[in-house]
């Protein structure tokens, strides 16, 4: 495979472009996705290639963005809808949760709702409490939705393709602080199946399970710890629904120790779900120490940079947590 070094953002764009070239039913809609290229420049240039018909600027109306995507999907299109910041999914929750996610089941299996709802999540841009949330736990709790949270250019491209080809509503959470991070991505068409975790680093002493930007921080932490002789395995689930429990369980059986790291605030976060799943699995008997969660504080994200940093796990926090457990 020929590889290219591209940013996460470019990988997102390429996935959309390639799918839109492949399938005329795929199109993009959202606020300022056209000439502006999206708030983070993700869709820059797409208007030029696909025109206003398939790269659709919408009014500032998140409810109808998600709901119209559902309506278009159920009648034969494959919309990619963008919510400018994942924080504004609050406005689209009814469309997403009560409509898109439930249509198929309520209708006795007759509907297909092949839509992707893309949105950047997370803190780190100094944009404070209403532009920095990590809300994936809400969506994991909604039957009928799939939830994807890629951390690298390779993953984001391969998973977005799968998401677009999937016949279900997929919530696709992009990690905004890695938009400009580069990584190797095949030039050939590829897709990454849902429900397959990626072991981002193989190790034997402790399993660190991390999502989004925390994958990168965990890998950094692992390098620091390696110097101390602690060999960390870093697992990135990549998709939260469906969830690859097997890979995680195997790893925990191997290492006997699990640390779960996420940016979302700890209380009610995805970490609890993961901890409970592991506990209910055969890995329970292999646990040498209690499962530990390293997660965001239970506070809105503050504006001031130092406080903002302290609100979510940093490399040091992960390092310390590992040291405490081994």
């Amino acid at each position, binding site marked *: 495979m020929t590889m290219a070094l591209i940013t996460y953002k470019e990988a997102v764009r390429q996935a959309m472009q390639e799918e839109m070239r492949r399938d005329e039913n795929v199109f993009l809609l959202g606020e300022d996705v056209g000439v502006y290229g999206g708030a983070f420049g993700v869709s820059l240039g797409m208007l030029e290639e696909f025109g206003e018909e398939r790269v659709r600027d919408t009014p500032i109306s998140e*409810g109808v963005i998600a709901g119209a995507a559902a*309506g278009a999907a159920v009648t034969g*299109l494959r*919309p990619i809808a963008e919510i400018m910041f994942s924080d504004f999914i609050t406005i689209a929750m009814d469309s997403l949760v009560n409509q898109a996610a439930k249509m*198929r089941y*309520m209708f006795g299996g007759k509907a297909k709702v092949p839509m992707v709802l893309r949105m950047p999540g997370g803190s780190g841009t100094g944009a404070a409490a209403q532009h920095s949330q990590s809300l994936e736990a809400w969506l994991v709790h909604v039957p009928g939705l799939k939830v994807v949270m890629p951390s690298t250019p390779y993953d984001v491209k391969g998973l977005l393709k799968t998401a677009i080809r999937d016949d279900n509503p997929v919530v696709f959470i992009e990690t905004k602080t890695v938009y400009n991070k580069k990584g190797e991505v095949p030039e050939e068409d590829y897709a990454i199946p849902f429900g397959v975790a990626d072991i981002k680093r193989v190790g034997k002493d402790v399993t660190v399970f991390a999502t989004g930007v925390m994958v990168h921080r965990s890998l950094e932490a692992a390098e620091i710890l390696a110097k101390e002789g602690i060999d960390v395995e870093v697992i990135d689930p990549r998709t939260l629904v469906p969830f690859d429990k097997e890979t995680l369980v195997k790893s925990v059986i191997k290492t006997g120790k699990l640390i779960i790291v996420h940016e979302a605030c700890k209380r009610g976060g995805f970490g609890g779900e993961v901890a409970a799943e592991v506990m209910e699995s055969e890995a329970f008997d292999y646990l040498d120490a209690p499962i530990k969660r390293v997660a965001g504080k239970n506070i809105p994200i503050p504006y001031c940079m130092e406080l903002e940093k302290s609100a979510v796990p940093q490399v040091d926090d992960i390092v310390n947590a590992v040291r405490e457990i081994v």
Partner: protein
Amino acid sequence: MTLNKETLLNWYKKMLHTRFFESQVDAFFAKGMIHGTTHLSIGQEAFAIGSTAALHADDLITSTHRGHGECIGKDADLNRMMAELMGKSNGYCKGKGGSMHIADLEKGNLGANGVVGGGFAIAVGAALTQQMKKTGKVVLCFFGDGASNEGSFHEALNLASIWKLPVVFMCTNNHYGMSMSVSRSTAVANIADRAASYEMPGITVDGNDPIKVYEATLAAVERARSGEGPSIVEGITYRWLGHSKSDANRYRTKEEIEAWKDRCPIKAFEQYLIKNNIISQQESDEITAGAKDDIVRAVEFAQQGSYPGIETLEEDVYA
């Protein structure tokens, strides 16, 4: 407007079907043979049937919690409707949806909705599909007067207007959203007045007259089909029965209800058909009897159905 006898009799029959279907549901509900909740549209049949009559067979609708009439208007199978309400696996949703979620995608019915205002955005999206795929199809989006105060109404109508989507917003103004009269809940007198906010036509008609409803809907549908964009069509009508099972009708008077019962859309239409020598009283009686029989058959069909097996519980969450 040439409405031949066959067409008019078809409407008449569908109005009767709606009435008898719902009367049966009401009776079954009282006996505990239908559970959950159900919202009956008795008294509103003309709007549902007159409006859907303006559609082609492959046009689409989105409906509401009070949607049996629209469903029947869109040629639903009475058997499968009744089976669904009884929670049977031969129902429209295999017993998983019930009254509030009947959908018939093959016939273009994108579903009733338990969320007030939940259908607006879906209808707009469905209309976008028609526009982008140039199918020439139109979407009717049904909603109640009360639903017009949800934010989803506003977002959807604005988007439909700026994109000139082939959708017609059909307001069944039955004077109340649960206990809230339109005059208490809504800043404007007629919901169609809100068309002004979206630069689209809005028209208010007598919702108890299927011909007036048909004509107004047809004009809006043709406009939408020809690419000129959405409209609001509002029909003024009345809900005879309580909002749902829990309603003690404390918010309105018996006199008001009786006055509207005197304006029964089905009776009035029968009189119109007879007076204009389209049918005789005898023919009308025969149609009525036939419609009743259809409901009896629907009940039989439903009763013969089995409840969905436990093995279906976790099926159909994902495609």
